[in-house]
């Protein structure tokens, strides 16, 4: 993937996020013109960027979005929820396209149609809100134009081309007449319509036409496109859309009726003087004697000048005769046309005979049945050389058989009964012939004989029933599905009977009703699935390397004071010592600033996580039918990138839980005397070197009793704990693994992993999580996280002549306690400190060091009061030293297994400081 595209993708994600945000803000304040302008600008820029690449699908949707936003901005269209929904949907689609580009570097062709529909629905929204009358006018105009265009005049095609096309249609291919009308300014968009037209797949014939007569050369504007292209192609609808994916609005696709190929042309040679031939030919035809008709036509053709109209008509006649099976009605029409030398009027052709030219055409079965009564012998034209049935054909066959069954079961008027039986019989017989089922033909002939002689439908019915049992019955819905899947133009009998409906791909013809939201594919994705934005344009490993390097500078810089000390004490050069110290001060300042700067690079605002919540809350609350007002505070609070990223998942879980379990339905809230709209507040702020995130809801809260019992049921706590546990502790049980109060697992919550995962994720980055809840009033979850994981502030403590580091997060205070105040309870020591009993432990014994802790001259021991989770305890050490910032390195190799230490750090004098893991040693 080239860097430009990479950047485009990452920027697009940002834009999409921005668009979604603005849209949701607009839902609250639809009149904010400033927001509207912002939103328009975002969509506009994104569209512009997408134009740099070959992604017409994306550009098209964005362009429609841009137009829509433009209309909203100008006040032509009012901003509405529906509009926001559509735009969000469109943006989801674009985001999906981005994913696809990222994965494969290109967009799948089938999305062209989706993108087209989506953009149309956006435009429809614009249209539907504008003056309805105006739109109606427009639609009417377009339909009129297209209705005229439908009367395809293919006479300009050379006869051999038409003959070829006709033959291929009879062999089962379908043709489109494609009219490509490039816009006049298309040359300036770098397009070459001629090339596009030449590249049209399966082109049988093509033509260029000029829209207007040519001016004098001196007045000619060569760069104004005035050439149209007309193409006869047998390519599929999808292939054509793919070829014209950039310009779907400039092409018109018309399915070609095979009869429009059959046009005799030529010199009339003095007018209609072929009455004799016509009479003879019709006689042969009435007698069904095509074998006699053929030689007559052939000899007539030989005698005539090939340029004559007559000869052309005769060539067609021979072709029609040789078509298997021949369509008598069509032949009649063609012969009749010789009387007047006017083009045969194929509109006289009854619907069924036209229809039957199309293999695999299934319409409603009863209609077929009626027609087969009229012309039973024509039924086998439905199947042309189709011994092997395709799935569609098989289904069609079943539908036909089912229809015959229905017909035979009708028992109303006896006088019609005979004809009905006969018609059904011939349908069945022809069907069997068409599929080449010899055994069936034999058995059905017997059944027909019986039915006709007894004048009852019973024997035929019996045969049909027997057959039906062998094959699974066809449900009507299935047959409908088939007709829906059929290629365009073959769908409905009535349509085919008149003139084929053109597939006009212009925005106006797709009326707003057609593109209503229900019918559109949804591109909506769960907002939390969206890949995290890669707003960090520098590779993170590079920043990490910088971080490591600055760490080393800090360490080596810290060696300078030692050097100064040595210069003075060991070598007695005070002067030099002072200079070294002065230099050290400068380096120290720069190094600290540098460290701060690099930390800043790694810092990200929590809005990175928060920004997805408006959409998440909006979608989930809609789904649950709840009314939720989301309040975000302190989005600008910054923390290390790793910390922020680790926050994302836990927060989503918590927000979902609040929405699903916490906040009540509007009616419940009203009944409880609260406002119908619940409030969910997510607040971030910085406290010292901690980031505090609070999630508050004013929902129903958590009932500690229920939690206790659930926890007991699930063996998370034992009976003794159940008795003495406080309410506050009880509600925090929801963080235990395997805990879930939901009776039913929904797609939102209830799997019992959520809060456990939350806790684990928070603890992984040395954070803590607490929950407070009051029944009926709401729940408050408080997460505190370190600002940065890179630099740890540690206090240096000394014990048994060794120094250790202890993270300041755990240090509550350091005190000296007189030995007399230490109280021994059994083996353990305690003391009363600030009115509370604090358990004491000696660091030496915890680390397995045999020496007793030192006592100073005042007979006091040094006690470090540490907080571990929610508990406070005292650690007896020998002495305290300063606190320093260290860059902690994890222990590797065999040392990695030592639970007592969380890592090591380098001191300024080059010695190694081991950092204690308080949780690990207690």
């Amino acid at each position: 993937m080239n860097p430009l595209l990479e950047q485009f993708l990452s920027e697009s994600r940002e834009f999409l996020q921005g668009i979604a945000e603005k849209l949701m803000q607009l839902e609250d304040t639809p009149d904010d013109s400033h927001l509207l302008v912002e939103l328009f600008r975002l969509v506009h820029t994104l569209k512009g960027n997408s134009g740099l690449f070959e992604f017409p699908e994306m550009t098209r949707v964005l362009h429609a979005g841009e137009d829509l936003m433009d209309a909203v901005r100008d006040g032509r269209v009012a901003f509405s929820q529906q509009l926001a929904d559509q735009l969000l949907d469109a943006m989801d689609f674009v985001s999906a396209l981005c994913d696809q580009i990222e994965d494969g570097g290109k967009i799948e062709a089938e999305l062209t149609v989706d993108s087209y529909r989506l953009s149309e629905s956006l435009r429809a929204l614009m249209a539907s809100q504008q003056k309805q009358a105006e739109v109606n006018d427009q639609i009417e105009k377009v339909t009129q134009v297209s209705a005229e265009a439908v009367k395809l005049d293919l006479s300009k095609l050379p006869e051999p081309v038409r003959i070829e096309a006709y033959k291929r249609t009879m062999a089962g291919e379908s043709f489109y007449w494609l009219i490509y009308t490039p816009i006049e300014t298309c040359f300036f968009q770098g397009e070459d319509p001629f090339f596009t037209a030449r590249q049209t797949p399966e082109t049988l014939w093509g033509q260029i036409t000029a829209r207007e007569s040519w001016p004098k050369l001196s007045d000619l504007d060569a760069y104004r496109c005035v050439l149209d292209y007309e193409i006869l192609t047998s390519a599929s609808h999808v292939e054509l859309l793919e070829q014209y994916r950039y310009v779907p609005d400039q092409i018109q696709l018309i399915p070609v009726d095979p009869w429009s190929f059959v046009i005799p042309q030529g010199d009339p040679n003095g007018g209609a003087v072929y009455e004799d031939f016509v009479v003879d030919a019709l006689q042969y035809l009435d007698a069904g004697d095509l074998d006699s008709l053929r030689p007559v036509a052939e000899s007539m053709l030989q005698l005539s000048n090939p340029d004559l109209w007559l000869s052309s008509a005769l060539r067609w006649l021979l072709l029609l005769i040789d078509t298997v099976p021949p369509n008598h009605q069509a032949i009649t029409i063609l012969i009749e046309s010789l009387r007047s030398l006017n083009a045969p009027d194929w509109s006289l052709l009854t619907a069924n005979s036209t229809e039957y030219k199309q293999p695999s055409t299934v319409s409603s079965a009863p209609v077929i049945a009626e027609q087969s009564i009229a012309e039973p012998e024509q039924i086998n034209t439905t199947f042309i050389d189709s011994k092997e049935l395709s799935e569609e054909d098989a289904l069609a066959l079943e539908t036909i058989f089912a229809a015959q069954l229905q017909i035979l079961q009708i028992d109303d008027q006896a006088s019609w009964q005979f004809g009905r039986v006969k018609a059904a019989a011939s349908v069945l017989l022809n069907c069997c012939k068409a599929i080449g089922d010899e055994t069936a033909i034999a058995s059905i002939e017997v059944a027909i004989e019986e039915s006709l002689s007894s004048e009852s439908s019973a024997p035929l019915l019996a045969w049909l029933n027997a057959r039906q049992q062998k094959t699974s019955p066809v449900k009507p819905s299935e047959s409908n599905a088939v007709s829906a899947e059929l290629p365009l133009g073959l769908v409905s009998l009535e349509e085919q009977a008149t003139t084929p409906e053109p597939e006009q791909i212009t925005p106006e013809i797709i009326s707003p009703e057609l593109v209503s939201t229900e019918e559109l594919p949804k591109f909506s994705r769960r907002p939390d699935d969206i890949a995290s934005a890669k707003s960090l344009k520098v590779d993170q490993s590079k920043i990490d390397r910088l971080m490591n390097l600055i760490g080393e500078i800090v360490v080596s810089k810290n060696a300078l004071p030692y050097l100064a000390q040595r210069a003075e004490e060991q070598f007695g050069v005070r002067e030099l010592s002072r200079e070294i110290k002065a230099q050290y001060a400068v380096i120290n300042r720069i190094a600290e600033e540098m460290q701060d700067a690099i930390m800043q690079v790694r810092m990200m605002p929590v809005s990175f996580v928060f920004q997805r919540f408006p959409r998440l809350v909006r979608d989930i609350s809609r789904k649950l039918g709840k009314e939720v007002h989301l309040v975000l505070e302190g989005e600008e609070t910054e923390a290390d990138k790793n910390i922020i990223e680790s926050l994302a998942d836990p927060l989503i879980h918590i927000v979902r839980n609040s929405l699903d379990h916490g906040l009540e339905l509007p009616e419940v809230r009203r009944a409880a005397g609260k406002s119908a709209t619940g409030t969910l507040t997510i607040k971030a702020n910085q406290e010292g070197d901690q980031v505090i995130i609070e999630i508050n809801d004013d929902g129903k809260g958590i009932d500690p009793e229920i939690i206790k019992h659930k926890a007991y049921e699930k063996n998370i706590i034992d009976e003794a704990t159940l008795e003495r546990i406080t309410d506050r502790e009880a509600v925090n049980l929801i963080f235990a693994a395997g805990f879930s109060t939901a009776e039913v697992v929904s797609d939102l919550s209830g799997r019992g992993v959520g809060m456990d995962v939350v806790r684990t994720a928070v603890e992984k980055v040395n954070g803590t999580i607490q929950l407070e809840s009051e029944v009926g009033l709401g729940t408050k979850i408080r997460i505190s996280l370190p600002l940065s994981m890179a630099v740890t502030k540690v206090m240096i403590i000394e014990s048994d002549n060794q120094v250790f580091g202890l993270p300041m997060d755990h240090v509550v205070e350091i005190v000296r306690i007189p030995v007399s105040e230490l109280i021994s309870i059994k083996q353990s020591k305690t003391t009363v400190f600030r009115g509370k009993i604090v358990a004491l432990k000696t660091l030496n014994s915890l680390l397995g060091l045999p020496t007793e802790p030192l006592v100073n001259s005042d007979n006091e021991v040094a006690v470090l009061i540490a907080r571990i989770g929610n508990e406070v305890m005292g650690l007896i050490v020998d002495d305290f030293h300063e606190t320093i910032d260290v860059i902690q390195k994890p222990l590797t190799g065999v040392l990695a297994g030592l639970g007592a230490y969380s890592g090591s750090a380098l001191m300024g004098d080059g010695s190694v400081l081991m950092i204690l893991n308080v949780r690990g040693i207690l």
Partner: protein
Amino acid sequence: MAIEYKKNQALFVDVISVDEAETFLDWLQNKPNAKIDLSRCNHLHPANLQVLLASKVAIAAWPKDANLKAWLETVLQPA
């Protein structure tokens, strides 16, 4: 490649791009009796085609490319 202008004849070679149209138009205006040799042409941008059509200039040789020839014949009348 491009259009090669001879004394009274323009030779279309390979693919004629959109940029050629302007020069071609200018050239044609000064040579009302010019002839065009398309025999070595594979494709021409429609802007050039429009100039050809408007000028009703005589075609000395049709493209060897059968597909292009078929397309052009539908709109350019053989001389």
